C-alpha cells in the first residue's frame, strides 16, 4: 500500500494563490483585473459559491465570472443560495458552469425553468437555505467563494454592514477547507466599522466603487392590502395566534402576513392580546412591523438579512434588533434559519398551490422560484425540543391519547392565503404542478415546499382548517376542501362532512370566531400606505424610490 500524499489541498491552494500573484497588491486586486483573477484561481469543474441570496448580491463578481474565457474556466458546479441576477444563469448558457445546487430563484423563476427543460443546467437539488449551508460543510464545500461586503481594510478584514446574511457561513466553509475567498467591497478603508469576517479568511479584495445590489424583497405596500387579506388576517389572529398564545414566530413574505403585522396595534390590541402574542421574532426587518414595534408589541427580532431603507430605523431600535458595536444591524441567515426551526412555535406564510392533503409548493409548470427558507421554518423538526405552551397544545390536539409526558409537541405550520390568487388562479388544486415538473425533469422528488404532514392549519377568507384535529385522510381532504371557497376543489366538497368537521371545530368560519366579514375594512390597518410607515418610524424609514408614490 502506498503512503498517502497528505497536504495536496493546501498545495493546490498555494498554486492558485501563486497564479494570481502578479494581479494583486497585497490582497487588493484592481476591478479591471477581476476576470483575469477568476481565470487564474478557478479550475475547471470547481465548486463555486457566488454569493447571492434573496437579498444582497456580489454583482461585480457575477459579471466578472460571466465574462471569463470559457476555454480556461468551464463546467463549474455552482453552489449558491440565490439565483437572482441574469449573470447567474448566463454562465450556464456559455458553458462556464454546468451543474447547479441552489435554494431560491424568485426573479429568475421563468428563465431557470426554461433552461432546466432545455437541458442547459444539470440540477443537483433545490434546497432550503439551512440545508444548502449544511452541505457546504459535508459534500458541497466550495473551492472558491465570491462574496460581497460593504468595506474592507488592507488586511482583508470585512465589514458586511446590516446585510451580513450568508457571508460568515460561506467563508467558514471555504476558507477552512483550503478554498479561495474573493470579496467585492463598496470601498477599501483604513479601519472597518466592525469586523464581520476576519481578514485571514479572505484572500483577495476588489473595490467595486459602488454599493452591491440588494433586492427589497420584504417590503409590502399597505396601500395594496385588500379587504379579503384583512379578513384572512383577522381569522388568523383570533383563530391561531390568540388560540395558542403564539409569542415566538416567523412570518413569510406576502400581503396576508403583512396585514397581520398591521392589525397587531389595532384589531389585536382591542382583543387584549398585547404581550400575549407575537413578541419574539425570527424575521427580516419588515417595514410593515414598524407600527407594532412603535406601539410596544415587540420584544426582540433576529434577522436573516436587512431590508432596503430600514437601516437607520433599525440602528435607532437596538432594544429590539441585534446590532453591532458600530450601531448597525448584524444579520445572519444561518443562525436565523436555525432560530426559525428550533426556537419558534409558529411559521405562517403563503404559497401558490395547496393540494387535497395539504402539500404545498410555489413551483408551477412555467416558474421554478425555489423555496428559500420556507421548507425549513415551515417544518416540524421532530427531534427532542424544549416545551412551550403552543407546542404542547398543538401536540395534544394531534395525539390526545398518548401520555402527556411522552407526547411530542407540534410546531404550528400555517399556510395562509386567499382561495384565488393573482389573475383568479385558484390556490387549491387536485394535483400540484410540482408533480408534473418532477416527471418532466425526471426528478426523484417533486419540489414540494411544505409537506402535508407538517402543515397544521390552513387559513383562507372562508375560515380556518385545523388539520391537527383530522383523524384520517378523508377528514383531512374535506377540511382542505372546506376552506377552499369557490375553487373547483372547494365546490367539490362533501357539504355534510364539512358541516360535521365544523361542529368539531376542525373548520371554523368567521362567525364561529366572532369575526364579521363586513368589519374587514382598510381602516383597521395601523398604516394604510408606505408614507404612513415613514410617519410611524419618525422619519427613520427611508423607502426605496419604487415604493415612494407621493
Amino acid at each position, binding site marked *: 500500500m502506498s503512503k498517502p500524499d497528505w497536504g495536496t489541498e493546501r498545495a493546490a491552494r498555494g498554486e492558485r494563490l501563486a497564479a494570481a500573484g502578479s494581479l494583486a497588491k497585497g490582497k487588493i486586486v484592481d476591478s479591471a483585473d477581476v476576470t483575469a483573477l477568476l481565470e487564474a484561481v478557478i479550475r475547471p469543474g470547481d465548486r463555486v459559491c457566488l454569493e447571492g441570496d434573496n437579498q444582497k448580491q456580489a454583482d461585480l463578481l457575477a459579471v466578472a465570472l460571466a465574462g471569463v474565457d470559457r476555454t480556461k474556466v468551464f463546467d463549474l458546479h455552482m453552489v449558491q443560495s440565490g439565483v437572482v441576477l441574469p449573470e447567474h444563469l448566463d454562465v450556464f448558457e456559455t458553458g462556464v458552469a454546468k451543474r447547479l445546487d441552489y435554494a431560491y430563484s424568485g426573479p429568475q423563476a421563468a428563465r431557470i425553468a426554461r433552461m432546466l427543460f432545455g437541458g442547459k443546467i444539470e440540477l443537483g437539488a433545490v434546497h432550503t437555505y439551512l440545508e444548502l449551508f449544511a452541505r457546504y460543510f459535508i459534500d458541497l464545500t466550495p473551492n472558491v467563494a465570491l462574496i460581497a461586503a460593504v468595506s474592507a481594510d488592507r488586511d482583508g478584514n470585512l465589514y458586511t454592514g446590516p446585510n451580513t446574511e450568508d457571508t460568515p457561513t460561506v467563508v467558514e466553509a471555504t476558507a477552512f477547507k483550503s478554498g479561495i475567498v474573493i470579496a467585492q467591497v463598496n470601498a477599501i478603508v483604513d479601519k472597518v466599522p466592525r469586523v464581520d469576517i476576519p481578514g485571514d479568511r479572505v484572500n483577495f479584495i476588489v473595490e467595486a466603487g459602488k454599493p452591491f445590489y440588494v433586492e427589497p424583497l420584504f417590503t409590502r405596500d399597505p396601500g395594496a392590502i385588500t*379587504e379579503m387579506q384583512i379578513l384572512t388576517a383577522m381569522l388568523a389572529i383570533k383563530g391561531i395566534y390568540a388560540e395558542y398564545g403564539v409569542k415566538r414566530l416567523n412570518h413569510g413574505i406576502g400581503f396576508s402576513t403583512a396585514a397581520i403585522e398591521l392589525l397587531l396595534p389595532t384589531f389585536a390590541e382591542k382583543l387584549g392580546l398585547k404581550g400575549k402574542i407575537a413578541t419574539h421574532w425570527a424575521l427580516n426587518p419588515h417595514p410593515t412591523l414598524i407600527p407594532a414595534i412603535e406601539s410596544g408589541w415587540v420584544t426582540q427580532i433576529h434577522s436573516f438579512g436587512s431590508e432596503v431603507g430600514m437601516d437607520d430605523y433599525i440602528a435607532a431600535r437596538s432594544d429590539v434588533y441585534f446590532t453591532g458595536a458600530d450601531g448597525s444591524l448584524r444579520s445572519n441567515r444561518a443562525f436565523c434559519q436555525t432560530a426559525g426551526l428550533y426556537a419558534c412555535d409558529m411559521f405562517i406564510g403563503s404559497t401558490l398551490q395547496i393540494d387535497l392533503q395539504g402539500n404545498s409548493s410555489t413551483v408551477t409548470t412555467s416558474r421554478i422560484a425555489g423555496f428559500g427558507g420556507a421548507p425549513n421554518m415551515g417544518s416540524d423538526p421532530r427531534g427532542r425540543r424544549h416545551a412551550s405552551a403552543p407546542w404542547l397544545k398543538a401536540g395534544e390536539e394531534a395525539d390526545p391519547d398518548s401520555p402527556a409526558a411522552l407526547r411530542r409537541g407540534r410546531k404550528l405550520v400555517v399556510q395562509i392565503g386567499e382561495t384565488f390568487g393573482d389573475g383568479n388562479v385558484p390556490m387549491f388544486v387536485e394535483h400540484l404542478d410540482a408533480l408534473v415538473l418532477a416527471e418532466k425533469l425526471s426528478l426523484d422528488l417533486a419540489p414540494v415546499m411544505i409537506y402535508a404532514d407538517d402543515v397544521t392549519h390552513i387559513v383562507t377568507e372562508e375560515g380556518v382548517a385545523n388539520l391537527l384535529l383530522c383523524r384520517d385522510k378523508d377528514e383531512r381532504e374535506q377540511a382542505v376542501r372546506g376552506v377552499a371557497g369557490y375553487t373547483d376543489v372547494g365546490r367539490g366538497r362533501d357539504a355534510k362532512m364539512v358541516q360535521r368537521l365544523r361542529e368539531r371545530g376542525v373548520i371554523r368560519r368567521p362567525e364561529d370566531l366572532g369575526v364579521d366579514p363586513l368589519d374587514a375594512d382598510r381602516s383597521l390597518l395601523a398604516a394604510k400606505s408606505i408614507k404612513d410607515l415613514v410617519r410611524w418610524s419618525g422619519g427613520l424609514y427611508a423607502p426605496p424610490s419604487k415604493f415612494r408614490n407621493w
Partner: protein
Amino acid sequence: METLTFHHKTVTPAGGAKAQALVGVVASGNLEVLVERTLPPAECTVEIATTAHGFGDIWRAVVGDFVARYPAGGLRMSINDGGARPDTVALRLAQGVRLIEEDAL
C-alpha cells in the same frame, strides 16, 4: 361582455327602508353592485355584466350562497364586474345588503 341573471325565492325580506344603495367600484379585479328595493319581498334577482367569460357555474354558486345567508328579499342587485374574485363578489353582495339596511342619515 357576458350577462347572467339569477332569480331566487327568498324567506327574509331585506331590512331598512332605503330604496337604493351602491357599493364597490368598477375596476380590474373589483366590481360595483347597485342594490334597488324594487321587487316583491319574497324575491331576489341578481344581474351580472362581467368582462370575464365562462364563470357561470361559480356565479351561480356565489349568488346561491349569498341568498341563503343574507336577508335579500325584495332586492334587485345589478353587478358591473371587472373580473373580481368570487370571494370579493360575495363580500360586495353582503356589503350591499348591509348598506341598504342602514337608516338614511
